């Protein structure tokens, strides 16, 4: 299997990495735009060759025309230099105060609140309530109603379940996978008020209603499954807050 089609020109190129209590996705997404293929993040160097091969196949050898980068964290940005060697000096769209400091001197800078056009497709740049680095952005693809959420909305999964969307993961262990991901990935949640985080997320989902939520570190979440994910997330945040 090469990539998984989510509809609206968006596909999920999933890769996973084994951890102690489950596997974590370190994926990317491909978007078919009028003027070429957009890659959302670049994945980890760990999966470089497999990602390159699958992107090559999925784009019929044309490769990618632009990368929208959520943040400079290495498992998201690590393949940019190699992919630029494979497919030319395509455009990098990234949010950060100073691209040089993030190792992205060639990036086009976006800001939270921007509506930006990439290869003929429109994206809304959003302030992420769940992130590790301060310069992280989420983006909403208006055409497909896909919300790309970087380190947000993650979940660990059992080995062997790396290709199914979140709603089709086995019920057993699914909520625990949401908790485990947040406990280990976003250490600041130990101080967070779950109501404030959930309130910001609900407001965003209302303003930009997603057909899919597309995380890097978890399976995509389909619209009908979002309420269940949000309930599991609220329980996870509450557990983390009560532990400390």
């Amino acid at each position, binding site marked *: 299997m090469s990539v998984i089609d989510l509809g609206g020109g968006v596909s999920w190129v999933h890769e996973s*990495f084994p*951890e*102690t209590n489950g596997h*974590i996705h*370190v994926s990317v997404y491909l978007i078919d735009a009028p003027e070429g293929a957009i890659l959302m993040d670049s994945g*980890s*160097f*760990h999966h470089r060759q497999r990602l390159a091969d699958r992107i090559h196949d999925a784009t019929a050898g044309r490769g990618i025309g632009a990368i929208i980068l959520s943040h*400079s*964290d*290495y*498992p998201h*940005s*690590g393949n940019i230099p190699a992919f630029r060697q494979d497919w030319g000096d395509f455009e990098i769209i990234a*949010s*950060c*105060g*100073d691209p*040089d*400091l*993030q*190792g992205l*001197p060639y990036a086009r800078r976006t*800001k*939270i609140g921007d509506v930006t056009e990439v290869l003929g497709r429109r994206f809304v740049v959003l*302030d992420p*309530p769940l*992130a*590790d*680095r*301060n*310069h992280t952005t989420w983006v909403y693809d208006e055409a497909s109603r896909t919300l790309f959420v970087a380190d947000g909305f993650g979940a660990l999964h059992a080995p062997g379940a790396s290709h199914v969307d979140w709603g089709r993961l086995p019920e057993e262990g699914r909520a625990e996978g949401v908790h485990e991901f947040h406990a*280990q*990935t*976003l*250490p*600041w949640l*130990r*101080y*967070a*008020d779950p109501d*404030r*985080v959930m309130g*910001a997320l609900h407001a965003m989902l209302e303003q930009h209603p997603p057909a899919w939520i597309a995380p890097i570190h978890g399976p995509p979440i389909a619209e009908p499954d979002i309420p269940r994910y949000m309930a599991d997330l609220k329980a996870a945040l509450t557990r983390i*807050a009560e532990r*400390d």
Partner: protein
Amino acid sequence: MNEPGSDTETTPAAAPEPAARTGAGWRRDVWPGIHWIQELGGHRAGIARAVLESGADWYRPGNELYVPQNAYLLTGERTLLWDTLSPASGHILLPALEELLGDRPLDYLALSHPDVPHAGNTMQVLRRYPDCQLVAPAVGETHALYHLDDAMKVGPEDEIDLGGLRVRFPEATFLDAAIHTWMSEEATRTLFTVDWMGFPHQSGESLRRTDEIDTVVDVGRLEEFHSRVMFWFQYVYPHKVTAATDALAVQFAGYGLAPAHGLPIPGEDAAPYYELMNEVVRRVAAGGRGGVL
């Protein structure tokens, strides 16, 4: 990107000359055995505007405003480099290391966290000093995704004796990445707080400690930094953060503070800064984030 020589608009009369500063890099002894290598980055015009609008009196219009990256070289009988600056500043870090170390080897490179502006020259340093032991935080699950699987892993139980200097690795209380540690040095009593306790400085204040500048570091100045970098202060229960800060103030009473994005604070002056940070948290929790760095 500013050249080091451009940072000369105002020179506070009380500040001593840095021990060594050349075109090759920025460095000086900040405390005995602790050398400071600073990357200024460019002038932060957006923050400068916000500072002026806030009515702050520490910033003089027309000066350049910096949010620096700091690396620290510790030299006992053995040597340890704490962080590596951003990938834009290999040309500052490596010549500074060569001059500070001379013929001595670099024994350890310790990374606070694998964040680009902190770890950006890791490979260059390891290539230049191939016998150097890479040291990384033990906490976290995904070391292999950061080329840290073969590093020596350290946590709160660990100490590295440098001969004359001893470093420990207390938990990072306020942090971004999951793979993260703070460091303390016990002979000089210095706490390296990485992304916490940073603040902007202006022309003439680079490579000065807080006791060597004429301007004050107040709540607003600390807020300019933390309301951007610790954007998540907007979502916290403030009392949880202030309780953690109060605990640090007790645990590290008398320690000097050596942040990665501000000026070092001498131990005898450090106590009030903890209370300033508590006010920063209350303000960001009430007013929201200040922007992006």
